[in-house]
């Protein structure tokens, strides 16, 4: 059985939810054995959680010379060593900021082909599907190389439970020198916001939001349903929201279950970043806004009137 290695993302020693869909993708049609790698001291706990989706081995990954988390170079080198040690046919990660960074380094170390940010993978056909032209088209690409490297877009594959027995292990790669790049500091977000690309639901405010403080209205609604808050490019360029909140081309590409666009007209560049969302809802006071032609459900109305009611109704439904 071919083996797929998976780099798991943890936060404060806990497995992030977005990893489960990655395990499902790594397993394929249960045609692969999944070996999961964690870089924090949480292998036992991770094994408990990841085995529910099909990871049969969870390995604490480290380097001989020091702290694996001190440099993305070390994590990439350790993964390269793990590919050999565990005889992996595939090595997968999440297309998040840390995942993209480690896999970029890894493909360079191995001088191997790498497909980033895929939507799906077909092991039998040896192909993957990924976005080209910033979400305007989907490309089916051939998987090449003796080891296949890929990162999966968060939320692109729904997690499927598939409990297996799992064991834990440790692998310390024989790497003594430090990385060329060192992590000096992590600056925490002031607002402690949920990352857009990882959120199952996103509520976005366009330029009519008018002022940074008005995003509070969207945050209140988001809190009720565990959503993240996004912004359109026009709103970011007007200074109403930071770039880290921007959805669309030159911002973030997201695939949540539910995307609620408030006061967003529906420019090509915005759609490029969110059209793979499962359901798109638009709230706009202009009944002729182009977004209504390209979304699933629409409400014509001023977002300043609609959103507070939406928050209220969601709360009532939740309490029921």
């Amino acid at each position, binding site marked *: 059985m071919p083996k797929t290695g998976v780099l798991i993302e943890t936060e404060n020693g806990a497995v992030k939810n977005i990893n489960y869909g990655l395990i499902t993708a790594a397993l394929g049609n249960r045609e692969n054995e999944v070996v999961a790698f964690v870089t924090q001291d949480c292998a036992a706990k991770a094994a408990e959680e990841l085995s529910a989706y099909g990871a049969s081995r969870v390995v604490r990954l480290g380097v001989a010379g020091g702290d694996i988390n001190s440099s993305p170079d070390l994590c990439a080198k350790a993964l390269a060593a793990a590919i050999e040690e565990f005889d992996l046919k595939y090595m997968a990660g999440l297309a998040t900021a840390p995942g993209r960074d480690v896999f970029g380094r890894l493909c360079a170390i191995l001088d191997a082909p790498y497909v980033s940010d895929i939507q799906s993978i077909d092991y039998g056909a040896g192909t993957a599907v*990924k*976005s080209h032209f910033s979400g305007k088209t989907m490309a089916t690409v051939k998987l090449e190389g003796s080891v296949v490297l890929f990162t999966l877009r968060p939320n692109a594959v729904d997690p499927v439970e598939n409990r297996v027995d799992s064991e834990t292990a440790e692998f310390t790669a024989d790497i003594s020198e430090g990385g060329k790049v060192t992590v000096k500091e992590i600056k925490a*977000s002031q607002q402690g916001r949920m990352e857009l690309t990882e959120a199952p639901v996103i509520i976005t405010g366009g330029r009519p939001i008018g002022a940074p403080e008005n995003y509070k209205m969207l945050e209140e609604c988001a809190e009720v349903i565990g959503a993240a808050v996004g912004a359109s490019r026009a709103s970011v360029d007007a200074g109403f929201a930071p*770039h880290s909140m921007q959805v669309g081309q030159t911002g973030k590409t997201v695939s949540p279950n539910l995307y609620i666009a408030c006061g967003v007209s529906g420019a090509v560049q915005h759609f490029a970043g969110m059209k793979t969302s499962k359901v798109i809802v638009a709230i706009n006071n202009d009944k002729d806004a182009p977004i209504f*032609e390209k979304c699933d459900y629409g409400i014509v109305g001023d977002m300043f*009137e*609609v959103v507070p009611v939406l928050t209220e109704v969601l709360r009532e439904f939740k309490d029921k």
Partner: protein
Amino acid sequence: MQVYVCVKHVPDTAANIKIKGENDYDTTGLKFVVNPYDEYGLEEAVRLVEKAGKGEVVIVTVGPAQAATTMRSALAMGATRGILVKTDDKFLDSRTASKALKAAIENDGAPDMIFTGKTSVDTEGSQVPYRVAKAFDFPVANEISALEVKNETATAEREIGGGAREVLEMSTPCVIGATKGLNEPRYPKFPDIMKAKKKEIKEFEPGDLGVDIPASNKGPLKLEPVPERSGAKMMQGNVRESVEELVQTLKDNKIL
């Protein structure tokens, strides 16, 4: 200071992509531009050289002959000169592109810094900065939105999710993959555009630089439009009614 900027010639982000056949797209009438992320790298490079008071910013592009036009707009933004490695391959793979970029830079001079964009908006490979860095054995940081270069040390910041930021430190020369937030790229003025027309663009065939473009390099197997939705189901009634209908519909479809 010798700074190189890798610039890709890509379809304008506002343009629609017309798919041609199974796995190709129509470039007839399609406007091409400097890859938007590369502009942030270019602006940073120009500022670094301006600050140093000496040196040059060299644009390096791997692309078709028509890419020279795109390079002119990069030159108008303040680059000194350009190098074009010619290939008509629309879907040149990132490995080969990185090898060509490395060969072109190495053939030209000794870089103090290399800039790229964090990804290209056409094929979205997100790996060229890493591969170029590895080829030179330089440190690399990608998706950089703040940078300081002082005494042969580069300090770079990148967003790592939810607004949190990672600060990376490395020695120079290094490779920096730029993203939005790093700076506000300048808008070239008319005299800059005129001046750019006279700037040098050296052209090379890949073979001149010892780069081999594999014949197997055919791009994607299939290119498809992302299915468009056919129009929204509009919720009816007053605000309260339409919101209730929406929430109920989302519940019924197990979206909430």
